[in-house]
C-alpha cells in the first residue's frame, strides 16, 4: 500500500491510534495524580507487569487470547454493517457447549459418578479437545446467527437482540451450573464437574501460555484474509456499504448475514472453549468476566480490522495483567484497571473522528499546471 502518494495516509493510520493511546496515558496519569499516586511510578509498574519481562508478558498473552477471539464476534459482522454486541453471550454458550461435550467425551456423562471419575474413558485427548472446540464453535456460532436471522427475517435490531441474548446466556449458565450439571462438591462457587487433567488444553511448549493464543492469532489472520482477499468478504463489504445495491447486484444478503454472524459467534464460542479447556477446567460464573464486552471495544478501537485487533488485544491484555501489581505496590484498588481501560477506549474512539482533519496527512496531488486560458470567460473550475 505504501506508494509515492499514499505514505501520508499510512502514516496517519499509525500516528492517530498511537497518539490517542499516549493521550489516554496522559489522562490516566492526571487521574493517578489526582488520587495521590505517582503517575510515573504507576506507568513503570504497568509496563513492568504487562510487557517488562518475558515472564510477565506471558500473563498479558494469556489475557489477550480470548480478547482476540471475542473481538472477531463484533469485527466480522461489522463488515456487513451490523453492530453485534453479543460477544459475552456467545462466549458463555461456547464454554457451556465445550464443557458438556468435554465431560461426555471424558467420562461418558455430564454428572459422572465417583467410579466414572476414577476410571475415565480412554478417549484420546486430541479427540476430546477437537470435539470441545467444535462444540464451542457451533454453539457460539448458532447463538449469534440467531441475532442475524432475527435481523434478516424479522427486522429486529441486532444490537439489542444480541444484548438480550447475553443476559439469556448468562442466566442459562447460572441455571445449568446451579443445578442440572452442578458438581455437588462445588459449594461456594457453583461449577460443573472439572475436566480430567489429561484432556485440558495444554501450554505452548516452553511457555506458560496456552494454545488458545495460537487459536486467536490464526483466527484473526483467517478473518483478515476472508474479508479482504476473498469473494465472500468482498460481497459482505459491498452489502455493508449499500444493502440495496447489493440486493440489486444479486448478492444473497440473507445468506451472507447468517454466515458472517455464525463465523463471528463461532470465534467468541471458541474463546469460551479456550477459557473452559485451558484456564477454568470447569464451567462457572468466571466465564463471564468481561472478555465479551472487552472484545467489543477491541473491535471498535481496531476499526474492525482483525489484524489491528491483535495489537489492541495485547494492549488491553497488558492493562488487565497489571491489576495485581497496582494493588500491591501503589495501594490502588483493582478498579484502577477499569478506569485505565475506560479512559484509553474513550480516547481511542474519539481519535476515529480525527482522520482527515490534519493537513499534514492529506495527500498532496501534483497537478499538471494547465496553460492559462487566454481570456477569463471560461467557467471557473471548482
Amino acid at each position, binding site marked *: 500500500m505504501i506508494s509515492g502518494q499514499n505514505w501520508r495516509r499510512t502514516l496517519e493510520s499509525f500516528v492517530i491510534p498511537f497518539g490517542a493511546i499516549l493521550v489516554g496515558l496522559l489522562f490516566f496519569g492526571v487521574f493517578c495524580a489526582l488520587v495521590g499516586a505517582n503517575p510515573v511510578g504507576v506507568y513503570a509498574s504497568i509496563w513492568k507487569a504487562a510487557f517488562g519481562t518475558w515472564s510477565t508478558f506471558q500473563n498479558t498473552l494469556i489475557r489477550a487470547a480470548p480478547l482476540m477471539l471475542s473481538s472477531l464476534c463484533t469485527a466480522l459482522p461489522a463488515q456487513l454493517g451490523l453492530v453485534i454486541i453479543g460477544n459475552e453471550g456467545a462466549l458463555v454458550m461456547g464454554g457451556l457447549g465445550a464443557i458438556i461435550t468435554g465431560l461426555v467425551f471424558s467420562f461418558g456423562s455430564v454428572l459422572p459418578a465417583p467410579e466414572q471419575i476414577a476410571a475415565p474413558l480412554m478417549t484420546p485427548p486430541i479427540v476430546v479437545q477437537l470435539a470441545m472446540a467444535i462444540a464451542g464453535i457451533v454453539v457460539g456460532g448458532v447463538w449469534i446467527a440467531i441475532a442475524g436471522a432475527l435481523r434478516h427475517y424479522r427486522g429486529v435490531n441486532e444490537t*439489542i*437482540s444480541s444484548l438480550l441474548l447475553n443476559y439469556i446466556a448468562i442466566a442459562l449458565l447460572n441455571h445449568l451450573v446451579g443445578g442440572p450439571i452442578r458438581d455437588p462438591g462445588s459449594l461456594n462457587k457453583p461449577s460443573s464437574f472439572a475436566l480430567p487433567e489429561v484432556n485440558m488444553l495444554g501450554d505452548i511448549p516452553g511457555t506458560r501460555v496456552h494454545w488458545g493464543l495460537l487459536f486467536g492469532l490464526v483466527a484473526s489472520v483467517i478473518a483478515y484474509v476472508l474479508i479482504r482477499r476473498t469473494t465472500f468478504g468482498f460481497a459482505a463489504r459491498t452489502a455493508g456499504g449499500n444493502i440495496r445495491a447489493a440486493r440489486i447486484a444479486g448478492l444473497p444478503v440473507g445468506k451472507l448475514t447468517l454466515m458472517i454472524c455464525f463465523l463471528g459467534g463461532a470465534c467468541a464460542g471458541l474463546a469460551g472453549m479456550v477459557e473452559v479447556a485451558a484456564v477454568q477446567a470447569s464451567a462457572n460464573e468466571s466465564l463471564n468476566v468481561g472478555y465479551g464486552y472487552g472484545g467489543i471495544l477491541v473491535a471498535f478501537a481496531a476499526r474492525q480490522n482483525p489484524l489491528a485487533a491483535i495489537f489492541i488485544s495485547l494492549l488491553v491484555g497488558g492493562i488487565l495483567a497489571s491489576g495485581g501489581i497496582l494493588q500491591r505496590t501503589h495501594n490502588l484498588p483493582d*478498579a484502577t484497571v477499569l478506569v485505565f481501560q475506560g479512559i484509553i477506549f474513550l480516547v481511542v474512539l474519539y481519535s476515529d*473522528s480525527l482522520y482527515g482533519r490534519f493537513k499534514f496527512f492529506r495527500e498532496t496531488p501534483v497537478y499538471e499546471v494547465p496553460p492559462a486560458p487566454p481570456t477569463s470567460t471560461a467557467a471557473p473550475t471548482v
Partner: protein
Amino acid sequence: MTTEAATEAIGWWGVPLAIIAGTMRGGTPFLFVSLGECLTEKSGKINLGLEGTLLMGAMSAYGVSYLTGNPWLGVVVAGIAGGFLGAIHGWLSQQRRVNDVAVGIAMIIFGSGLAFFLGKPFIQPKAPSLPTLELGAWSSIPAVQAALQISPLFLLGLAIAPLLTWFFKSTRWGLFVRAVGDSPEAARAMGVSIFKVRMLAVMAGSFLAGIGGASLSLYYPGVWTERISSGQGLMAVALVIFARWNPIACLWASLLFGGAQALGPSLQSVGIKEGYYLFNAAPYILTLFIMIFTCSPKQTLAGAPGALGKEDG
C-alpha cells in the same frame, strides 16, 4: 430478608405480596433509567452507558449521604454525577464517525471503574437511607408493613413519567427534542442546534439515571456494593423499545420488570428452587419475543425516533 419474613407469617400469600413490594422497590431504578433513556433516545442518540451512570449514581449518593448525613443531598449529587457522565457521552457520541453503541460500552467500563474506585471506602460503613412512607401502618402484619414501605423516589418517578409525556407533547423544548430525533434536517431548518439539544437530552437522561442509582443505594437494597446493579442500566435500552418510546409505557414496563425480578426470589422463599435463574431472565426473554412479534423486516418499529442510531445528518 423481608420476603422470607413475609412467607413465614403468611405462607403462600407472601408470593403476591413480595411481587407487589418488589414491583415498587425493584421497579424504581428501572423507572428512572428507562425515563432517562427514553429522553435520550427521543433526541436520536442511544446511551448504552447508563449501567455505568447507575453505578456512579449509587456510589456518589451513598458516599455523600454517609459523609454529610443527608441522603437527599446524596440524591442531588448522584444526579449531577450522572449528568457529568452524560456530558462525556453526549459530546463524544456526536463526533464524526464515532459510534454511540461503542461509546456507551466504553462508558460502562469507565463509569463502573470510577464508581468502584471512588466507592472503595464506602463499602463497609452504613450511610443513612432515605426516609420511607409507611403506607402499611394500618396492618398489624409486619410483612405487610414492610412490603408497603414506599420511597419518595418511587413517587417522584411516578410523577416524572406523565411530566415527560407532557414535555414531549406540549412544550417548545419537547418539540425540539422530538424534531432532532425524528428528522435532524427539519430541526436544522427550524434553526435548532442539533448538537446542543442532543447534548442536553443525553445529560438530562443521565441525570435521571444517576437518581435511579441513588434509589439502589439509598432505598432498595439500600447498601453500596460493587454488585448492586444487576444490569438495570443496560436493560434500560430494551425497556424503552418495549415501551415504544412512550414515558407512560416506560412506567408500566418498569413495574413489570421490577415485578418479574421479584418473582424468582419470592418463589424461592416458598420452596420452589428450580429455575431461579431462568425466572431472572424472564424480562429479557419477554423483551426479545415482543421484538420478534412486533418488528417487521419492511419497516422500523412504530414509535421509534426516525434518526435513532443513524449517522449524524
